[in-house]
């Protein structure tokens, strides 16, 4: 048997330990708060409206980052396509102005 191991049953020592344990003072209205929390936990959860769900979804960092990236990409693609169309149209008008003056159209 090891030297520092407590004897399995030592009533005087157990009593002494119990008395020496300090129990902290409970905060004010502790019991009332506990009951309120229990009631809230047992009450059926209120369903979030679609607006709240959507707002919560938007505020998720992953969703927000993906949305910003998608909008940026779409904007750049659409802008590039429109720019190419403008360049093509301007080049076509340059050619047309050279070969077909307004008096011939």
């Amino acid at each position, binding site marked *: 048997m090891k030297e520092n191991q407590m004897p399995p049953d030592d009533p005087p020592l157990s009593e002494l330990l119990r008395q020496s344990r300090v129990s902290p003072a409970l905060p004010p209205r502790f019991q009332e708060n506990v009951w309120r929390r229990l009631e809230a936990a047992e009450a059926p959860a209120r369903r979030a*409206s679609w*607006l*709240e769900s*959507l*707002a919560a979804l*938007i*505020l998720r960092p992953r969703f927000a980052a993906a*949305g*910003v990236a998608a*909008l*940026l990409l*779409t*904007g*750049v*693609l*659409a*802008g*590039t396509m*429109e*720019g*190419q169309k*403008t*360049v*093509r149209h*301007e*080049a*076509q008008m*340059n*050619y*047309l*102005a*050279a*070969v*077909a*003056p307004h*008096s*011939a*159209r």
Partner: protein
Amino acid sequence: MNRSLIILLGALALGAAIFTGSYFAAQRATVMCCAKPADDLSWLQEEFHLGEAEMAHIRELHAGYLPQCAELCARIAAKKSELESALGNRTNVTAEAQLKLNEIAALRTQCQSNMLQHFFTVSQAMPPEQGRRYLAEMKQLTLGDHEQMESSMSGATSHEHHH
């Protein structure tokens, strides 16, 4: 106001700003980087996928056509100023003004005829499929305006006749 609604409206505004900003920035960048205002024929080469040999031939045709076109344009401009003088402050079309109008019309017809002939010649210098596409596009761009105007005018006339 509801907090969720504010979040949604804010997200919508931010999204619109991001899209619009990136759209206009990309459009401007594309126009600035890709525009080639120096060469009138660059559009032909890119649009109809022409090789250097075809372009060289078309450049020759183009260079031969431009002086004829410029000369006719100058003659039309001169006739127009003669018409202005003939009209003066008169309140009806005189025989001289009518003559000038006829001369201008004849010059315009000749100018159009030369232009169409140039389009045919250029189209023949291209691969057949591209030539057909070029011709169709040129006809649409140069004669289409007249067709549109004439059909709208004839539509208006027939509309009046029904009444």
